[in-house]
């Protein structure tokens, strides 16, 4: 049976924890709104980019001399996985979900006898993956997303990926991130970056509406536009993965902290009840002692 003093100190410690978690929840909630807006407003660009690439890719794919970013290196032996996670913890299962997803992909690829390397974006996932796949990690980017994710912060990551591709260090690049659906639901998503997957819908559209069938003029040539557009696409996709993941992080943190606050509240109630009972029991005991002492006289 804990003493009254123990109970009192436990109650006060849980109370201060509750204050912290509820403050974190508020902060996450206010950042979530901004992050969500950012994630949503980065979508139009990516969508239009896809549309343009679809148009271009349709006319260039299959031609000899198509850019490597589109056609691939002709091999799928070496894989690079870009894993996007948060830099900070206390956001529920977000990072472990991503890490689990990444590990599953690594195992799959290794079972097929492929070479795998990892590029970590965000500190948390590196800490998790380091245990099993220390040797595979090429580099980690952790200096981003303090307040929001900016396009400039995505650039070095993209540049690194493109440099490695230029340097013939991998054949296929996949990015794994948490896609933001709502504050309580984030979906670990895999997306192939290199070679650019020509969307099926691009071909469907051509059959469907007359507009896409139109023959485009290119200025300068298709190849030159593609040579510029493809790296830009890699950049925007990475930027998008980072903004989505950041919004997911804030959402997950808000939910996790909301739960923690609620749990702390329940714990305080339980402890207070126990405290009051113990106090009552002590008073009763003292009274009994006094009365039985008086009767004995």
């Amino acid at each position: 049976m804990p003493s009254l003093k123990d109970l009192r100190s436990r109650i006060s410690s849980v109370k201060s924890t509750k204050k912290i978690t509820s403050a974190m929840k508020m902060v996450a909630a206010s950042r979530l709104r901004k992050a969500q807006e950012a994630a949503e407003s980065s979508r139009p660009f990516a969508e239009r980019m896809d549309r343009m690439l679809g148009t271009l890719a349709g006319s260039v794919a299959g031609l000899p001399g198509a850019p490597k970013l589109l056609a691939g290196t002709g091999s799928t032996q070496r894989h690079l996985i870009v894993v996007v996670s948060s830099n900070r913890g206390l956001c529920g299962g977000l990072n472990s979900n991503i890490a689990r997803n990444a590990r599953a992909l690594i195992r799959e690829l290794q079972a097929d006898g492929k070479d795998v390397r990892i590029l970590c974006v965000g500190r948390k996932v590196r800490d998790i993956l380091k245990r099993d796949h220390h040797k595979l990690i090429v580099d980690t980017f952790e200096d981003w997303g303090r307040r929001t994710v900016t396009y400039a912060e995505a650039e070095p990551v993209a540049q690194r990926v493109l440099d490695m591709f230029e340097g013939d260090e991998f054949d296929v690049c996949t990015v794994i991130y948490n896609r933001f659906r709502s504050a309580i639901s984030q979906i670990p998503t895999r997306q192939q970056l290199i070679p650019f997957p020509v969307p099926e819908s691009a071909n469907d559209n051509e059959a469907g509406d007359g507009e896409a069938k139109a023959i485009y003029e290119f200025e300068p040539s298709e190849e030159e536009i593609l040579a510029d557009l493809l790296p830009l696409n890699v950049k925007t996709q990475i930027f998008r993965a980072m903004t989505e993941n950041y919004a997911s992080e804030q959402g997950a943190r808000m939910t996790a902290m909301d739960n923690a606050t609620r749990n702390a509240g329940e714990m305080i109630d339980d402890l207070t009840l126990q405290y009051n009972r113990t106090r009552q029991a002590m008073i009763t005991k003292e009274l009994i002692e006094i009365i039985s002492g008086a009767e004995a006289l």
Partner: protein
Amino acid sequence: MAETTEFELVSPDRLLISEPVEMVVVPGVEGDFGVLPRHAPMLSTVRPGVIDIHEGGKVRTRLFVAGGFAEVTEERCTVLAEEAFDLEGVSGEKARERLQSARDDLAEADDEFAKGRAAKAVGVAEALVAAVGG
């Protein structure tokens, strides 16, 4: 109101403009081109420069883009720009400051990648200075 074409200007972090316009002039790499309704479909690379939105024979809005891509079809014109903003509210002084700091960066750049980037930034800043007429 004359016939219009749907003009969209998108940067990675937001959709800047999406509205019907009478004519828009886009700075393509191989020269400026005007887009009117029912323009032939084309794709072009855009150099750093100014996009003019014309209305009633006059320039209504001037927007600066730091390079990107334009897609034109019969009923719309979409410009994807890495950076874009309204020229109104940008002073010549600000533009020159930017050019100066871009040049400083270029002078300090030590590796190949940083140099390429800085050179590009200088190009963009030069175009901006030219655009504000400084």
